[in-house]
C-alpha cells in the first residue's frame, strides 16, 4: 500500500543565495516557463524564481484554462498561434499530463457589427495560418445543439467565429510541469519570498530586496500580472495599465454534455465544461479598477441571466464556488513585453484576461531576449515603446471579452 504513495518530490527546497544571474518575480506559468526556457535553451543555471505566495497562486491558478489563437490582429494571431503549437506537445515536452483537449471554440455574434468583426478575424486568421471561419446559426446548432439559436433570447445568435483548435488545459498542471522541469535544470523556486524593492544603480538593475534578504543580480524579469504596475513602480518604469478584478465560477459537476467552448462578447460571458464535469464560467473584467479579492453576487446575477438564455439547461445547475483574479489591462488590449529604460529590467505585463494561453510562448521569447540580448520578432510589436511611437496593436475586438 505504501508503494502507492508518491515518494518523488517535484521541487527541491533551497537556501536563498546572495546572488543569481537572473531573478524572476512571480512563480506563475509565465515566470516558470521563462525560467525553464532560460535554462533549457540558453544554459543559464543561476536562476531564482521568487513568489510572495505559493506557485500558481495568482492568475495562473485563477483563469478559466482556455487556449486559442483566433485574435484580431496579425501580430496577435501569429503570437498566440505559436503558443498553441507549443501547448499541443507540452505534455510530452514536460513529461506531465496537462489534460489538453482541443474541442473547438465558438465566439458568438449577436449583431451585424459583431458578425463583421468575426469575418475580419477569420480573414486575418487564415492569412497567418490560424484555423477559424465564420459559421451561421444552422451550423452553430449542429456544433452545439445545447445553444438556444431561436429568436427568443434578448440577443439572438446571428453567427459565430468557429475555431476548431481552441481548447482547455489543466492550468495547475502547466504550472507544476514547468516548475518540475525547471527545477531539474537547476532553477531555484523560492515560494513565500516577497520582493519589496529593486535596486538600480546608474540606470542598471543590481539586485532585489526581499523579505528574506538582499539578492544581487544583473537581470530582473517581472512576471506578476495584476501586480505589474506596483513592481514597475519599484524601478520607476511607469506602465499604461489599470488593474481590474475578473470573476469566474463553476457549477456542480454533471455528465459531459457541452464539448465546445462558448464565448459571447455581447453578453460578456464564456463557458466550457471541465473534465470533471463542472461548467466553468466567466465574464468580462469588472468595470471598476481595484485589487479586492472579494467575489460579488452581482457577478453571478449578471452571468446567470445571460447564460441561462443561451443554454437553458443550465437553469438546473447549482453554483459550486466562485473566485476572483487580478488583470492588468493595457489601452490596446495587447500585452507589454521586453526591454525597459532600466538596463536589466525586463517586463512581461499587460496580460489582461488573456495571459495564461500565452504562457509557453512568453517563456520562450522572453528567455530568448535575455539569452541573446535581441528582441525576438514575435514580441517586437508588443514593446513598451509602442505607446510612445503611435504603433498600438488593438486587440479590443478580440480580447475585450475575456476568452
Amino acid at each position, binding site marked *: 500500500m505504501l508503494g502507492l504513495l508518491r515518494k518523488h518530490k517535484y521541487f527541491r527546497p533551497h537556501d536563498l543565495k546572495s546572488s543569481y544571474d537572473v531573478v524572476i518575480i512571480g512563480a506563475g506559468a509565465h515566470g516558470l516557463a521563462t525560467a525553464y526556457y532560460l535554462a533549457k535553451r540558453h544554459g543559464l543555471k543561476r536562476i531564482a524564481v521568487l513568489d510572495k505566495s505559493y506557485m500558481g497562486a495568482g492568475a495562473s491558478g485563477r483563469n478559466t484554462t482556455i487556449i486559442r489563437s483566433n485574435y484580431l490582429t496579425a501580430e496577435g494571431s501569429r503570437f498566440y498561434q505559436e503558443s498553441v503549437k507549443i501547448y499541443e506537445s507540452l505534455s510530452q515536452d514536460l513529461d506531465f499530463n496537462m489534460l489538453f483537449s482541443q474541442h473547438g471554440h465558438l465566439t458568438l455574434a449577436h449583431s451585424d457589427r459583431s458578425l463583421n468583426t468575426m469575418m475580419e478575424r477569420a480573414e486575418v486568421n487564415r492569412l497567418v495560418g490560424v484555423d477559424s471561419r465564420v459559421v451561421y446559426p444552422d451550423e452553430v446548432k449542429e456544433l452545439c445543439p445545447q445553444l438556444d439559436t431561436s429568436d427568443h433570447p*434578448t*440577443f439572438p445568435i446571428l453567427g459565430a467565429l468557429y475555431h476548431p483548435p481552441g481548447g482547455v488545459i489543466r492550468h495547475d498542471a502547466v504550472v507544476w510541469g514547468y516548475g518540475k522541469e525547471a527545477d531539474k535544470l537547476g532553477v531555484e523556486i523560492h515560494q513565500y519570498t516577497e520582493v519589496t524593492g529593486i535596486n538600480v544603480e546608474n540606470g542598471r538593475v543590481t539586485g532585489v530586496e526581499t523579505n528574506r534578504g538582499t539578492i544581487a543580480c544583473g537581470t530582473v524579469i517581472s512576471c506578476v500580472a495584476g501586480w505589474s504596475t506596483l513592481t514597475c513602480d519599484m524601478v520607476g518604469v511607469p506602465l499604461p495599465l489599470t488593474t481590474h478584478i475578473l470573476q469566474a465560477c463553476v457549477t456542480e459537476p454533471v455528465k459531459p454534455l457541452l464539448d465546445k467552448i462558448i464565448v459571447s462578447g455581447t*453578453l460578456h460571458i464564456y463557458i466550457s465544461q471541465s473534465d470533471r464535469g463542472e461548467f466553468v464560467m466567466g465574464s468580462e473584467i*469588472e*468595470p*471598476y479598477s481595484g485589487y479586492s479579492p472579494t467575489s*460579488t453576487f*452581482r*457577478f453571478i*446575477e*449578471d*452571468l446567470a*441571466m*445571460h447564460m441561462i438564455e443561451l443554454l437553458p439547461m443550465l437553469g438546473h445547475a447549482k453554483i459550486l464556488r466562485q473566485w476572483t483574479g487580478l488583470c492588468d489591462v493595457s489601452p490596446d488590449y495587447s500585452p507589454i513585453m521586453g526591454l525597459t529604460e532600466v538596463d536589466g529590467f525586463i517586463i512581461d505585463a499587460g496580460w489582461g484576461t488573456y495571459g495564461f494561453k500565452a504562457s509557453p510562448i512568453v517563456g520562450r521569447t522572453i528567455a530568448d531576449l535575455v539569452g541573446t540580448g535581441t528582441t525576438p520578432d514575435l514580441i517586437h510589436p508588443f514593446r513598451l515603446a509602442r505607446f510612445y511611437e503611435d504603433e498600438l496593436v488593438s486587440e479590443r475586438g478580440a480580447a475585450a471579452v475575456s476568452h
Partner: protein
Amino acid sequence: MSDSFAFLSPAAVRSTDGHRPLLRTPVERSHIAAGATIEEAGGWRIARYDAEPADAWLADVSHTGKLDVRGDAARVDELTGGADLGAASHHDGVWTLRISPTHAAVICPFERVTDLRERIGAGVTDMTCGWAAFTLGGPAMREVFMRSSSLDVRESRFPAGRCMTGSVMRAGTIVLNEGDRFRMLVNWEVGEYFWDAILDAGVNFGIAPVSASVALREGVAV
C-alpha cells in the same frame, strides 16, 4: 426602517444667519471636469450642459426626492393602491414604485419630500441623499442599457410604467421605465462610478450628458 433615520434627511437642512447650505450630487466633480456649468436651484448645486439630447443621453437627477418605504404587504398595498409587483404609477409629479410585497419607493420633487414623509408615516426613510439618480434617454437608450446590464429591458418585457431591481454595471439598481427614458437609482457612494461607467458604455452610441431639466420634462404618459 423607521423614522429614526429622519436626521439624515437633507430636507431638514435649514439656512441660518449668514449661512446658506447647498447640497451637491455625487457627480459634481465629473460635471465640472466635463465643462458643465453649476447652477444653484432649490437648495442644490445642479449641472447645466449646453448639449442637446442625442441618440443617447444621460442626466444626473440626484437632486430629486426619493423615499424608501418598508412595511407589511397590506401597508405597502395601501400606499401603492394595490399595485402589482414591478408596477410603477405616476401622479401629480410623483412616481410610486412597487418593488416587492413589502417594499416600495417614491420619487418626487425635492420640495415635496417633507410633506410626503409625514403623509406616509411609519416605515418611510428619506433616501434623497442615500440614492443617486440618473436618467438615460434617447433612441439608443435600450442598447446602451443592455451593454451595462443583463436585465431584459426589451419593450415587450419591460414596458412603460414598470420597475425592477438588479445589477447595472455591477451595482444594485432600481430601474424605472418612464416611457421614453429609464430612471436608475443606485447607492449614493457609487454614483460617480456609475455615471462614468454608463457614459463609457454608451460611447459607441454617441451618448452625451445633458442637463437635469431635459430628463425631468414630461415624458410619455403612463
